[in-house]
C-alpha cells in the first residue's frame, strides 16, 4: 500500500523533472546552435526595442492608463457572470420547466431584472461615459 502511495509521488517527480528539463534543454540547444552558424546573433537597435504591434514604439516606459478602466472592468465582470448564470439555466430549462413549471422561467427573469436595474444605474450615473461632467467643468 505504501509503495503505491509513493509511486504516485514518483509520477509527480517525473512530471516536474520533464517540466524543468524541456525548456532548459531548448534554450541550451538554441544557445549551442549559434556556434555552428545556424542561429547568428546580430543585435541592432531596432531589434532590441519594445514590440508594439509592429508600429515604431512611442515610449519605453510602462505606459500610464486611465483609472476609469476599472468601471469597465467591474461592469464586464457583472455581465460576464450574468452570462455564466444564464448558460446552465438555458441548458437545463427543459428539465426544470417540467419540475417547477412557470417558476423556472420566473426565477431567471427576476435575476435579469436585478441585473438590468444595475445596468440602468451604471448608465444613469455616467459610468459608461468616457468624458464625464467632472472633466468638462
Amino acid at each position, binding site marked *: 500500500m505504501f509503495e503505491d502511495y509513493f509511486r504516485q509521488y514518483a509520477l509527480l517527480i517525473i512530471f516536474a523533472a520533464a517540466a524543468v528539463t524541456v525548456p532548459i534543454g531548448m534554450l541550451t540547444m538554441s544557445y549551442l546552435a549559434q556556434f555552428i552558424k545556424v542561429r547568428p546573433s546580430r543585435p541592432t537597435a531596432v531589434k532590441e526595442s519594445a514590440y508594439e504591434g509592429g508600429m515604431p514604439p512611442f515610449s519605453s516606459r510602462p505606459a500610464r492608463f486611465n483609472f476609469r478602466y476599472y468601471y469597465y472592468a467591474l461592469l464586464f465582470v457583472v455581465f460576464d457572470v450574468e452570462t455564466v448564470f444564464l448558460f446552465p439555466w438555458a441548458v437545463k430549462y427543459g428539465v426544470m420547466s417540467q419540475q*417547477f413549471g412557470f*417558476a423556472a422561467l420566473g*426565477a431567471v427573469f427576476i435575476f435579469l*431584472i*436585478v441585473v438590468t*436595474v444595475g445596468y*440602468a*444605474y451604471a448608465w*444613469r450615473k455616467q459610468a459608461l461615459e468616457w468624458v464625464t461632467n467632472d472633466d468638462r467643468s
Partner: protein
Amino acid sequence: MTAHDYWVLSPAIAMALLALVTVSVDLVTRSMAKVSTVAFLGLSAPLILTLNLWFGWFGDPATAREATGVADLGSALFGTVETDRFALFFDFLLLTVTAGTILASAKYIASERMKDYGGEFVSLVLLSVTGMIVLVSATELITIYVALELTALPVVALAAIHRSKQGVESGTKFFVLSAISSAILLYGFAYIYGFTGSTNLAVIMERLTVLPNDAGVPFGSYAVLLAVIMIVAGFGFKMAVVPWQMWVPDVYQGAPTPVVAFLSVASKAAAFAVIMRIMYVAFGDPALMQDWSGLFAILAAVTMTLGNTLALSQSNIKRLLGYSTIAQAGYILVGVASVPANQVGATFAGAGPQGVMYYLAGYAFTNLAVFFAVIAITSRTNDDSIEGLNGLLKRSPLLAGVLVFGLLSLLGMPPTVGFMAKVVVFGSAINANLTWLAVVGVVNTVIAAYYYLRVIRAIVFEDAEDETKFSADKPVLVAAGVAAIGAGVFGLAPFLLLEFAEQALSILPAIVTGL
C-alpha cells in the same frame, strides 16, 4: 424554487425588490423626497407578508405546520431557510427599525452633501435589512454566512458614504474587521462541519448527541469547543461584545448618525437572533447548554464592565453612545447566558431567550429615540460634543424631553422599558443559578448612571452659550417621538412583548425537545 419557497421567503424578496425600486425611483426622478416616501410606504409590502406568515391570512406555511405537525412545511430551499415565529418576531423588529431609520434620514439624504447619494443610501439600508431577514430565518451554516455578508457589506458602504477622512476611516475599519470576523466564523463552521458532517443546524444537534464524548471536556470534544469559541468570536464582532468591540467607537463617531442608529439596533438584533438560533438549535442539548452558558456569562460580565468603564471618560456624544451600546450588549448577553437547562424543573417561562427578545425590542425603541434625537439636534447645532447639549431644555424642550427619556430608559429607570428589560433579564439570570452575573449587572447599572446622568445634567441644568431656540424637522421628530412612546408603552405593559416573545420561542424545535 417552488411556489412554496417563494411564499416562505416572501418578506426577504419583497425587501430586496423594494431596494431595487428605491434605486430606480432615484434614477428616474432624482427627488430625495420621493425616494424616502416610496421606501417608507413600500415597507408595508414586507410588513404585510410578515403579518401574513404569522397569522396565516392566506393559508401560510407556518400555521399549516402547527395544524398538521409536519415538520418541514415551514422551511424552504431544501431546509436552509425557515420562516418560523422566532424569525418573524425579529422580522417585525427589523421592519420597525428600518421604518424609523428611513423616516429619520429623510432630511439627511436631501441635504446638499448627500443628495447625489440619497437613493444609494436608502437602497443600501434596505439591502442590509434583506440580509438580516434572511439571517434570522436561516437554519443552515452556509446560508447564515451568505446572509451575514449581505448584512455587513452595505453597511461598509454606508459608513464610508461621506468621502471625508473620518468616513473612509470608519468604513475601512468596519470592512477589515468584518472580513476578519467572517474568516474566524467560517473557520468555526468548518470545524463543525468536519466534526458532524452537516451544515444543517438540526442535523448538527442530532449528530452531536450521538457522537462519542470525551468526559470532562467542554462540549464533549476539543474540536467542538474550538468551533463554538470561533463562532461566538465571529458573531461577537457583530454584537459589539468585548473583546471584539474596538471598532465601535471609531465607526460610531465617523459614520453618519442615521447609519449608526441603524447599525446599533438592527445589526445587533440580527446577530443576537442568529447566535440564539445556532446555540439553541445546534447546541441545544441540555448538557451542552451548561457549557456555553458559562462562556456567555464571562463575556457578559466583561462586556458590561468594560463598556461602562470606558464610557465614563467620553466627551463626544456619539462615542459615548458607542460605549453605551457595548454595555447594553453585555446586559443582553446576560439573557443569552441564562439558559433554561440551569433551572430546577426547567421551563421556558422566565428563561433567558424571552428576556433577550424583550430586551432587544425595548432597546431598539430606546436607542432609536436617543439616536434620532441626537440626529435632530446635531443637524442644527453641528456640535456632537456633550457640551454642545448644554441648556438644551431651554433651546428645544421637545427634543430634550425625548433625549432625557431615552437616556433614562438606557440607564434603566422605572417606568421605562429599559427598567423592565433589566428586571426580566437579571431575573432570568437568578433563575438560571447565575446570581453573581445578576449582581455584576446591577453594579454596572450604577456605574452607567454616572455617564447617562452627566449628559442629562448638561441638558437640564447647564446654561447654553447660544440661547437661540430651534425645533426639529418633522419626520425625524415623528420617528423619535414614536420610538420614545414605544419605549414608554412597552415599559408600562411588558406583557405585550413578553407574550409575543413566548409565542415566537414556542416554535423553536430544539427548545421543546431539549428540555
